[in-house]
């Protein structure tokens, strides 16, 4: 008899044991929040996007906001209103000034006033030290570091149209390395030696973040940027406002949780993307770019 009981238990287990994952009737039913994205740059035209979020179950077709007023203020004074030029695209002819405090005010019918603030950063003084350059190394010296900055490299193997600013013909380099002592290693991935036999620096995925540092003595901080450069290259030094810096870093960190499609680590992901938009979500931030162009025919 007892043997039969155990056999029954065994059979029950065989039937029931695998069912450890099942659907859960969760309905957060959240969406429709106004999303404002605006990164001020050193260009003469500033862009913004105003949309609404969608529930997580829906496709990524963000709802349009048709009637909105998007106003930019500098030190509390109105600079102008963005004009809607597309589905979610708004533009304003204006070049921000370094060190100025900017506010963005977005008015959407039936919504509370949406506000955000940032400060346009001064350029960090980073200069090239080209005399010591040898493949795969570009040398630089940093003389000021009041704001954090991001650097990345772009290259093209065929001639490009604009040497002043990277255009659509360039490619963002995936593996870059630096010996900058203030480099943030949050996205470090081993050593560049893996892909470049003569490289000597740790490797980073696409972007390198460098912490703010102040003061810097008169000799500056020499550092290298290594990658497998092409014939035509840009090295971009993007000085970031605090808001842009946190937004980009948290966005990249979030992306790392999804490197592998099957990685179950995403089950535990609760990482929040930085947002400074009041009564809505998104980002209002600023950055100032320096482009270093190199033509390396050999």
């Amino acid at each position, binding site marked *: 008899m*007892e*043997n039969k*009981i155990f*056999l029954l*238990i065994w059979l029950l*287990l065989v039937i*029931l*044991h695998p*069912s*450890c994952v*099942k659907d*859960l009737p969760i309905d*957060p039913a959240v*969406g429709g*929040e106004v999303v404002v*994205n605006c990164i001020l740059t050193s260009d003469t035209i500033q862009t913004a*996007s105003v*949309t*609404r*979020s969608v*529930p*997580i*179950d829906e496709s*990524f077709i*963000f709802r349009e906001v048709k009637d909105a007023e998007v106003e930019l203020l500098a030190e509390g004074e109105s600079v102008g209103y963005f004009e809607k030029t597309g589905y979610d695209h708004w533009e304003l002819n204006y070049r921000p000034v370094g060190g100025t405090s900017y506010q963005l005010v977005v008015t959407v019918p039936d919504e509370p006033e949406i506000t955000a603030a940032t400060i346009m950063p001064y350029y960090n003084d980073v200069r090239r030290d080209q005399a010591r350059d040898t493949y795969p190394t570009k040398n630089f010296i940093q003389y000021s570091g009041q704001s954090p900055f*991001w650097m990345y490299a*772009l290259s093209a193997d065929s001639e490009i149209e604009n040497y002043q600013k990277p255009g659509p013909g*360039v*490619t*963002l380099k*995936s593996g870059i390395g630096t010996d900058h002592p203030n480099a943030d*290693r*949050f*996205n*470090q991935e*081993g*050593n560049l*030696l*893996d*892909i470049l036999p003569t490289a000597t620096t*740790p490797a980073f995925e*696409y*972007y390198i973040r460098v912490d703010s540092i102040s003061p810097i003595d008169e000799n500056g901080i020499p550092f290298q940027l290594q990658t497998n450069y092409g014939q035509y290259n840009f090295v971009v030094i993007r000085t970031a406002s605090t808001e842009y810096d946190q937004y980009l870093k948290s*966005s990249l*960190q*979030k*992306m*790392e*949780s*999804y*490197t*592998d499609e099957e*990685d179950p*680590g*995403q*089950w*535990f992901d*609760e*990482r929040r*993307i930085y947002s400074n938009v009041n009564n809505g979500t998104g980002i209002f931030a600023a950055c100032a770019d320096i482009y270093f162009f190199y033509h390396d025919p050999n």
Partner: protein
Amino acid sequence: MPPVQIFIFSTMTQIRFLFSFFSLLFFSVSSFAQTNALSFQPEGDSIRHFELKGVDVYGKQIHRRNNVYRYSPLMSRTLISLSGETDVIRYIGTLPGVSQGMEGGSGYFVRGSNSGNNRLELDGVPVYGATHLFGLFSVFPQGIIEDVDYRSGRFPANSGNYLASLDRITTDRQVEKKFHGSVELSPLMAGGSLKGFLSDRLSIVASGRISLLGTEYRLIKAMAGLEDDVKITVGDAFLKLNYQLNEKHRFAASGYFSNDYFNIESDAMVTMNWGNQLMRFAWDWNVSENTRLQTMVYGNYYHSGQEQKDYNEDDLTGELKLHSSIGEMAAQSRIVNKGDRISYEAGVKYNFQLLKPRSEKILVQKDDFNTRNNSFETIIISGFAEASYRFNRLELTGGLRNYFYRLKEDELFELDFRGAVSAHLSDKYGIEFSYDQLTQFHHILESLPVGWSLDVMIPSTNGFSPEKANQYYLGGFGEYKKWIFSGGAYYKEMKNLVRYENPSTVLGGQNSDWYSDVITGKGTSYGIEVRGERKGEYWDGAFSYTLSKSDRTFAEINDGVSFPFRFDRRHMFNTNASITTKTSSTRNQFFNIAFSMTSGNRVTIPVSMYKGVEPPYWSQRDRGLYVSPRKMENALYRQKIGEENGYLLPSYVRLDVGYTFQKKKEKYTRSLTLGIYNVLNRKNPYLVFHEDGRWQQLSIFPLFPSVKWLVEF
């Protein structure tokens, strides 16, 4: 694979290990149970008197203080565990104010505190890694344990360096002249214990356990043709020698060792290892009839680590190591005087600790660019004094504990006050108030709230001050017939608590130093707790109910607004009973039942998607690196994460049943216990995730049988 994901892979490997274990256990239980069923043939219904060795004496008056619970391994045996192992720590989960962590695990959260705020001691020596097999059961073998003193409040001044609970496990102090012992076998472990006198003055208490899982896996691997190579070594050993020099002086020397080692080889090789090594020497001097001087010196080493090696064909391409350890040397002396009205004790403790939170990410044959190898030497010198005054039905207790803490040049002085007032309003009823100030000088960075022994321990530093708590309790106690009751309300506030800013981040993760990921904050917890216990001739039982609310506040999370603690379970109800169904001079049978019903724990989930600003030139990136579709989504869009711990999982409900067949022979007693964990087969959610357009839950433990064979002689 990025380091975070490597770790999470390891974490998931641990969960997969659990599934593997239980698959293994499942097969083992089935085969083992059948084997034993053949040999077990119960007799008829003859009812005779049967003396149960070690069973609590019925009718003996039980004294229960609020906040203080003393119990024996026998009481723990009534609980059905996943492993079949008798576990004195699992019993804590049935007590009021205790919120369980991962289902089936040993992690527990007392009055809104973190799991790392509990202090577990074996004969006064702290045990930092108290679990075997990812928390399935504790490292304390029941065969050597005399009793457990668990406190969630009313803490004595002679203890410190914790915030939540004090769990003092005491091994056998007095053994009989004749040798006694036990042999036990379950699908997970085999072991035994022995105690007795080696000479007139020298006695011994010893035990050892070792896991059978490695052998079982090899057997199943051969039968089922599995490819993965899994090595498992789990065990513990204890030895204590007592020497009674004369009536006044007694010496004890003891050692304890536990180890968990797992190695799985498939695409990558993952190794996990943790363990404890303890040595203790004690001298008890009975200075007079009422006064004793107790002196103890101990050394303690605990380590936990995991390592992953990645291969490209046969070439080692990468390696990740995460490691945390604490080495400790301590000496303590205290004098205790117990008088009719006034009792007092005072003492001093010196404690040296070496903490090593460490992580390494290494690319083979390359320079090491990402090593976080910190080492912290700390000294804690404590002085303490406590006095009690009893007058008629009133008892007053007050104590002070003073700390001097040093880490390199940083020095701290802390003072904790603890006090209690209790008054017996009648012979059977009384009230009690207590206040506890608590300080903890180490922080434990919990990666997953499960109570596994793999969390990282860091010391208090300039940036991370000692954790502090204040706790107030007001309650009453009483007895009615065979029942005793206690109940009351507590309020607790905690500060300088630490956590990872993002729970998926762990040491060795994306920042170059461990403290970049760590933030500090505070918490509060308050609630009402009720406990009832019954001792009877034929059945014993107990129930606990807690109504509580616990929260956390961190400036970096939720805009600095308080949010619920992950294990803020509003209601917690636990009950268990052991019923003698058959008793005779040679046979006994017991039916054990336990029921648990609590509010679900809380999780943080994404609630919406919105358009993001893609990283610069992302759409023009070179195609050298594979970018998964989900990573691509997260480059273009952003997840809006809901309120921190804002989603309440469904309630947790579990019913366990067990049956013990006990047979007494002339020289030994044999017991076979069969149990079914989660007999309702309820899928209690452990975590939730969004996949394939719908929300799903992962449940760790469905209905699960267990079996244990025990011989005591």
